[in-house]
């Protein structure tokens, strides 16, 4: 298959997935059941956490639980800072500085 055709199909499918429920749910073609509505509140914590955990705990696909895992330590620093500051930029800066210092001194 030609690479342009692959990209076009891939792009159409991606758009279709993004558009699907925004269109169908809003047009009233079906209604969101109460359980689903409640479930949607847990999409952010579940998805964010599923993106974060592998970044912190895995190294090349393997569990990396040690004091030598600087990304995990810097991530924990960021979690504490996020809890206190509730500020995205401060959290990122704290996490990056933590990672930088750990790599510099350890």
């Amino acid at each position: 298959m030609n690479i342009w055709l692959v990209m076009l199909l891939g792009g159409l499918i991606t758009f279709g997935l993004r558009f699907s429920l925004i269109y169908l749910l809003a047009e009233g073609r079906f209604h969101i059941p109460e359980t689903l509505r409640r479930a949607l509140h847990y999409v952010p914590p579940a998805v964010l956490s599923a993106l974060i955990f592998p970044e912190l705990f895995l190294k090349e696909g393997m569990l990396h639980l040690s004091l030598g895992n600087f990304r995990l330590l810097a991530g924990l620093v960021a979690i504490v800072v996020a809890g206190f500051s509730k500020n995205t930029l401060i959290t990122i800066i704290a996490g990056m500085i933590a990672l930088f210092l750990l790599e510099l001194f350890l």
Partner: protein
Amino acid sequence: MSERSKHFWAGVRAEIPLLIGVFPFGMIYGALALNAGLSRTASQMMSSIVFAGSAQFITAQLVRDSAPGFVIVLSIAVLNLRHMLYSASLAPYLASLSTRWKVLLSYLLTDEAYAPTIIRYEKEGISPYAHWFLFGAGLSLWSVWQVSTALGILLGAAIPASWPLDFALPLTFIAMLVPVLKNHPAIAAALSAGLVALVAYSLPYKLGLILAALVGIAVGTLLEGTS
């Protein structure tokens, strides 16, 4: 400032920290795509035709491995299934918009545009110009993605792999996650999703992420029902 531009710029501002993480990703994508044997034009155009980071990385890798076209298309589809969750999650907030707006905002609906938007909508509810927030977040991300792709293509493989700028991406997600952990079901949803993401990480096509998200959502919903 009009209501419209107020929401638009709030979206852009909320997106800025994410852009810091996305920029090196875009550059790495550009460099990798070129390296995988895609032409400069195709590498650049994929960033606007597909416009989905992880799917573009997989596509570049599969092109390099000479995978058949249908495998690449299927991989993109599976990888982007999670966008249906975002679509469902935002649907109630975008219900009153014209189809034209829905098409535009759907095209711009990435992980990084969804995250700050849903946080904002859940906090502030619906207002007549709230969709401009998503437009601001999505458009700024789209622009940065195009520019960083172009720079990546230009610089090729010259970016030092030792730059840990990519770490800004999980840090941003942390900054968003911590404030939504307001009650036990939310914390349980996050922990269970995280653990499943680790256990299921080796599943192909990022299916582990989808599975983890679904488990986390189920755990949170069930716990809320019982408490």
